[in-house]
């Protein structure tokens, strides 16, 4: 909200510090200053009023704060007017409140007003605060609103059907033509100010065209009301209309302001006959609020001992009074305008900020020591970042969303992916069901600059079909990566090598690659391996479908991808593994080559070699592979080692013999030593 320095000055007899100094004081004790601008001979101070301080959407409210900070006494605006006994408000207007959320409804009537330009001073204040001048009546209403914080509405009395007003909630949908000539569709339950026939105003939000004040207006009714904040907020949100009035009501304002404000209005009028009396319907006046404040708690919470006399002075300066003191507790009476104060913590904040947070010295906490627990996934994510960046991978962080276009192109199903109800645009229509889609985008955008791309991301993905009974079920932490080179036939094996490296970096060794015929929108069939540990899927390595790459705009590139369930990985990584003694005896290496058909799986050959079940075989290593006459030749190092003795050729020969026997059982395989 924008404040006028000159208008703030009217609340004090003492000269205020200059505008810049004043702004600094407000900034350090109450609200953030958003701007300070010279306007004619005035200063416009833009202040971010905190949403709990409905009382400060007014110069009066801010002046109270300034008074507390500077210790300057506050001077209330002058209210001086004379009723004209010829007219009595009760004869001119009938008011009925039938909606209990209209807490208070106050009206005064002025006859024979002359609509004209307003007073120069008022115009200037309005201008500083960014409000347009319209005519004397509307300007004074606006002025009282910025001065005291009470929104006023002025009706042309002659336009109110049967001079009768009822405050009610709508029983059914109805159209409403507002002052700005726009039509709003109101709903059942919206609170309106109505004549017997027509809606005059939308309560607390906007006046209507029907009873608008115009140049011919003679008699006016000035409404000064208080509505329950939540009702105003609800309607205003629904019809998407925020006004100076609705913002104030939403933030809760002092119901005691209504009479003061309507009187302030009439005392600023320069002509017209003020009808005697005021209509003031105020059924449920709240009882004065008393909050118990334990003096000890102030020091305990703030961590500083503030002398009692300072505490009392601060409370008094902010309008609080002490109703009684019992056993170290103050019973503090809360002024009607401080609707935000309900608990002793609220009061401690008032004391702390006014005393000055800068006076609180930093203090080491005294608290029991306990070894901190760090979430496994967070801990291992760090290790993975170090491991992968160590072999040339770039970590990316992508948006958690995918677009409508992505969804359609990849044929993702509504039954799987989660939709945003109010997306910013169709670019962020859905939550990402995997990390791969956005990694493809990264590949594409980097291709003009990099011929070799290795990227990965660790992040959450969202899949509806994981839902069991908690919303958290649909969240899944993944680690995915992509490798892209210009045309390279060994991409799959590079990605598989990365997967091996990664798993070993995490201390995981007992995993297997398995063929899987997965129906997928992304992975290419027959070029996909599932990684399993103890029968559980932990991830995939493979090649994306060409059609997917085409759709993502990636041309002429070979790409391999990997995708891990990172929660499972981090649990496995955390499991202990044991050190195994290093053998004191030398290892013996024998080589064997096997000529097999092209479609033979290397793993099948390895399995057979392991089938010899010799505990002297420590490792079998594929070291060469080449194609020859429609077959392929696989060459393995077989490493023998014993923990008990130095092995001799005589001990190894029979094992090699056995390996050959086993391999020869397959007629298509031709082993050779």
């Amino acid at each position, binding site marked *: 909200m924008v404040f006028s320095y000159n208008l703030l000055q009217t609340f004090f007899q003492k000269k205020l510090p200059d505008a810049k100094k004043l702004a600094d004081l407000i900034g350090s004790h109450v609200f953030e200053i958003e701007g300070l601008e010279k306007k004619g001979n005035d200063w416009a101070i833009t202040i971010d009023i905190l949403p709990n301080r409905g009382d400060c959407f007014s110069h009066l409210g801010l002046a109270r704060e300034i008074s507390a900070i500077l210790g300057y006494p506050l001077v209330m605006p002058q209210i001086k007017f004379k009723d004209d006994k010829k007219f009595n408000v009760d004869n001119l207007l009938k008011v009925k409140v039938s909606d209990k959320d209209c807490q208070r409804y106050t009206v005064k009537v002025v006859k024979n007003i002359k609509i004209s330009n307003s007073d120069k001073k008022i115009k200037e204040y309005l201008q500083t605060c960014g409000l347009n001048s319209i005519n004397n009546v509307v300007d004074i209403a606006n002025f009282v609103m910025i001065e005291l914080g009470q929104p006023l509405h002025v009706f042309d009395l002659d336009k109110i059907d049967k001079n009768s007003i009822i405050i009610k909630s709508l029983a059914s949908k109805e159209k409403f033509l507002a002052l700005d000539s726009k039509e709003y569709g109101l709903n059942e339950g919206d609170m309106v100010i109505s004549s017997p026939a027509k809606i005059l105003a939308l309560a607390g939000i906007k006046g209507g065209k029907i009873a608008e004040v115009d140049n011919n207006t003679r008699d006016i009714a000035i409404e000064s009301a208080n509505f329950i904040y939540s009702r105003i907020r609800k309607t205003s949100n629904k019809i998407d209309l925020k006004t100076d009035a609705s913002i104030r009501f939403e933030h809760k304002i002092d119901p005691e302001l209504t009479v003061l404000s309507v009187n302030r209005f009439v005392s600023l009028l320069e002509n017209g006959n003020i009808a005697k009396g005021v209509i003031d319907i105020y059924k449920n006046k709240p009882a004065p609020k008393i909050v118990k404040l334990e003096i000890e708690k102030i020091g305990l919470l703030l961590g500083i001992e503030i002398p009692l006399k300072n505490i009392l002075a601060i409370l008094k300066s902010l309008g609080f009074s002490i109703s009684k003191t019992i056993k170290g507790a103050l019973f503090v009476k809360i002024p009607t305008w401080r609707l935000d104060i309900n608990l002793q913590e609220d009061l401690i904040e008032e004391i702390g900020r006014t005393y000055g947070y800068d006076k609180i010295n930093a203090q080491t*906490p005294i608290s029991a020591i306990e070894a901190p627990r760090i979430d496994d996934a*967070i801990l291992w994510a*760090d290790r993975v970042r170090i491991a992968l*960046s160590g072999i040339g*991978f*770039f*970590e990316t962080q992508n948006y*958690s969303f995918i677009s409508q276009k992505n969804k359609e192109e990849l044929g993702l199903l509504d039954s799987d992916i989660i939709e945003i109800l109010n*997306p910013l645009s169709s670019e962020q229509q859905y939550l990402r069901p995997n990390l791969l889609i956005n990694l493809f985008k990264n590949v594409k955008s980097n291709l003009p600059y990099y011929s070799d791309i290795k*990227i990965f991301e660790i992040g959450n993905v969202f899949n509806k079909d994981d839902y069991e009974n908690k919303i958290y079920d649909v969240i899944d932490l993944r680690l995915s990566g992509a490798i892209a080179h210009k045309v390279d036939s060994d991409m799959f094996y590079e990605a598989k090598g990365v997967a091996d490296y990664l798993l070993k970096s995490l201390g995981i060794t007992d995993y297997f690659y398995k063929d899987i015929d997965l129906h997928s929108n992304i992975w290419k069939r027959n070029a996909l391996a599932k990684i399993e540990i103890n029968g559980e899927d932990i991830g995939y390595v493979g090649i994306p479908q060409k059609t997917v790459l085409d759709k993502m705009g990636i041309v002429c590139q070979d790409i391999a991808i990997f995708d891990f369930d990172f929660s499972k990985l981090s649990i496995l990584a955390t499991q202990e593994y044991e050190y195994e003694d290093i053998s004191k005896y030398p290892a013996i290496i024998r080589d064997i080559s096997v000529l097999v058909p092209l479609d033979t799986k290397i793993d099948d050959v390895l399995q057979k070699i392991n089938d010899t079940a010799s505990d002297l075989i420590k490792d079998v290593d594929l070291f060469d592979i080449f194609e020859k006459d429609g077959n392929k030749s696989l060459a393995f190092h077989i490493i023998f080692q014993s923990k008990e003795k130095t092995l001799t050729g005589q001990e190894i020969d029979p094992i090699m013999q056995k390996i050959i026997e086993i391999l020869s059982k397959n007629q298509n395989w031709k082993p050779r030593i």
Partner: protein
Amino acid sequence: MSENDIDSIKNNIEKDFNCVKSKEDLDAIYEKYLGKNGEVVNILKNLRNLPDNEKKIIGPKANELNKLVRENIFKFQNKFKNESENFFDITRPGKKIKKGHIHPVSLVSSKAIEIFSGMGFSVIPGYELETEWYNFDALNIPADHPARDMWDTFWIKDDFTNKKDKIVLRTHTSPGQVHFMQKNNPPLRVIIPGRTFRHEATDASHEYDFSQLEGLMVDENISVANFKKIITDFLQRFSGNKNLKIRLRPSFFPFTEPSFEVDASCIRCQGKGCSLCKNTGWMEIMGAGMVHPNVFKAAGLNPNNYQGFAFGVGLDRLALLKYNIGDIRLLKSGDMRFLEQF
């Protein structure tokens, strides 16, 4: 001196020449075998003391050794001749080894985790999707309160839970406080790093998908003064500036009372005033406050027994400040030209 000795010297000579890398090595070998007291020289010297039959066998063998050493030295000398004696170009580029890069927000997050865990704070992730209750109500932000407007929210189209509680992308990491307090009893010390979401348009300093770090410390008498200490320590360690200062300004968050904004003295100008801090000498770093009694109640703790502080700091913002990045959107650009600088 036996034939075996001669063989072993021969072996040594061969081994030594296998390891020759420089002219110095060659000189050393010459000295070792053919120098004044060289091993081969000594054999030749001793020849005349040997009986004739041995002389006949050892003699030619010793001469072979002599020849072997000289020939090899000659061979290597030729090789080294072409290399300038003392010239070694250390300015030649090293072998290219491709380095990867860790995302700046991860770097900042890891650093924060390291500092806080060192001060005894546990680390938990929280959930990116939340129920309306955890994201708002439990944090003392009722549905009809204008404070809700402080968090522009992405709502989820819920056609799968059959539950009343609406689902949101968490607008802050604060729901993690409630989860943690529901499962643990004080003393509590925890940080919750993770992504948060706001339904707002992006520009150089605003992002709709960004990372935050929540902090919570609760015990019987944790105070504002303690908060000042922990946060000053953190920011000093994080920035590497031992003289960094903080200040608290009043603020409002429904889940803390009192609430404050925390400013740190500008990391670039150290408080003197510069373009980064808009000449104020201070930079807004985080929102914080003392946990509101209603939040304790919502999490099942008795507010009469406990008190403590909570804070939320933008990790993206810390990364921008730390690395002097001008546009927050670069963080999620996936642009390797950006990423390779970290």
